[in-house]
């Protein structure tokens, strides 16, 4: 489903060259719940940004379902993100002036293959699933951090994306809310066969992943199923 070939991302800060990703190659299968783990600065977020079309690699290729991402124009990338990908951010990243319902519906409203009735129905269903339907008319600031993150997941899931990316979604949450969010991801993955790629630096999160890729200094140092961590 996702093929990554010799991916490199080099930042230049004056004379200094920082290799955020240094030759990463991976394959991610459909329906996997993949955890990308590593210490701060290991390149895990950079990798996620490359996969989510939020940044461009210095070299290497990413192919998602047969589409070479390097060949897409800006507009095609935007449409690829809209139709194929879902994204959950560390800081929820909800639009503060939109209600919960509007935040969840926002990207669905843009899709040409959805009628108003369809996206409303999908939004209601996903809000019911995450248990926030009764807060649908509230603004994000009126919700707790855990609730906001669940809304963020609902927004990412409403379009039924091929791949869901999550960038340290529990970083700002307490352990109870973190567990709730991880359970939600697991449920989505199991019930809907949703491919999920999640970045985390919390070791206890690994219990939720099918497969864990560990990065260090921009390189894959371990790749294996949960418990094995073999490469």
């Amino acid at each position: 489903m996702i093929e990554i070939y010799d991916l490199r991302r080099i930042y230049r800060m004056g004379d200094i060259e920082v290799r955020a990703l240094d030759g990463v190659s991976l394959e991610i299968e459909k329906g996997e719940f993949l955890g990308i783990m590593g210490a701060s600065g290991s390149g895990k977020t950079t990798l996620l940004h490359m996969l989510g079309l939020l940044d461009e690699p210095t070299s290497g290729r990413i192919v998602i379902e047969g589409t070479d991402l390097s060949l897409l124009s800006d507009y095609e990338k935007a449409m690829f993100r809209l139709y194929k990908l879902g994204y959950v951010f560390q800081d929820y990243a909800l639009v503060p002036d939109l209600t919960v319902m509007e935040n969840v519906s926002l990207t669905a409203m843009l899709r040409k293959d959805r009628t108003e009735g369809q996206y409303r129905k999908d939004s209601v269903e996903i809000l019911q699933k995450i248990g926030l339907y009764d807060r649908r008319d509230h603004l994000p600031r009126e919700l707790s951090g855990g609730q906001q993150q669940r809304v963020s997941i609902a927004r990412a899931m409403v379009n039924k994306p091929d791949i869901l990316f999550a960038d340290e979604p529990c970083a700002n949450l307490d352990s109870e809310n973190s567990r709730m969010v991880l359970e939600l991801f697991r449920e989505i993955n199991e019930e809907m066969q949703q491919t999920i790629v999640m970045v985390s630096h919390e070791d206890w999160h690994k219990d939720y992943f099918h497969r864990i890729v560990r990065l260090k200094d921009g390189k894959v140092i371990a790749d294996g199923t949960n418990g094995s961590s073999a490469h």
Partner: protein
Amino acid sequence: MGKKELKVAFLLAMRSLQRGSRSSVILTILIVAMCFTNMVFLPGMFNSIGQNITKQVVDYEVGNVLISPKSGEQYVTDLDATLALINGMPGVERATPHYSKAATLKYRQRILGVSLRAITPNDEKAVSPLYTKMISGSYLGDGDTGEIILAKMIAGDPSVKEEYEFQASLGGVRVGDSITVEWANGYTKDYRVKGIYSTGYWATDTTGYVTKSDMELVEGRPLDYADYITVKAKPGYSEKFIKDELQQYGVSQKVQTTTDLLAKSMGKALQSYAIINMVSLFVGIVITTVVLFIVITIKTLNSRKQIGILKAIGVDKAVIMHNYGFQVIILALLGIACGIIMTSLLMVYMTYNPIVTPDWSASLYLTPMDLISNSLILFVAAVIAGYVPAWQVSREDIQTAMRS
């Protein structure tokens, strides 16, 4: 850019205005409204002054068309025949002659030099509203002799000392008083003041009127000549039509429309007004453009992270750009609407409280076309001012935007 994208852009814009900073929205609308008012106020004033002067010139000086002596001649001659010809022409309401003569007015200890005008009062009624401007006494009749009507400024105010007078006067002549008039040809006669008027037009308010019959006594012969003839057009007939007709009918005197005369006398003033109007318009547009540019720039800078996130979740940059574009459009429309309301209230206020000077009075004269054209200019300027920062920020790459 499809309907769905525009709908999302509009939703984002509306929600940002509804749920963002109220004070910022209100202040921006107020600034646009004040800019609009600034743009139309001075031109409106100058329009009003121009309209007012034109009306006064038409009403008290030249009518719609002025017939004056041809080059090298002192008077319009063969007056009766000329008047008969003009008054018989289609489109002519009435033609009436004016004849002025210098005179010295004496009343008690006061002596005042003026140029008095001789008119045919009944014909004059069809041409000039002077007869409606009597503040005491009555207007002249055709056969009146030994009677005079004076401007209020000439009659004077007995409560104002001579040294404090703005304009020299007779110090408080009242209707029924007798004044002595010493004409330039030496003829001296006592006149009874029949009426006192005030028109608000300087040239008329610094003179007095006697009848043509009386002037014939002064001159000692029938007046078959005049300084000029004023012609009033019937409603629906243009000045140009009357002028062309007069020339076709063989009126050999100099024929000029009010527009011709004002173009000569007011040309420089109108040019100056136009320059001031342009400056006012330019300043208004620049202020609005800069203010909206700053407002939208601040908004976009404050929302850079959110813009990055919107792009990250698949919202196209055009939607983001139009979001800010719609915000500017809404702010500009509301500002212009408030500006129109403010201007309309000012128009009403100034109609009842005009700015009055000895030469002219001014309120605010704006046509619907003035309001529409200024609204459009301001709207276009506002949209450009808003779209430029919106376009700039929407082009920023996701990583840069999200890191901010």
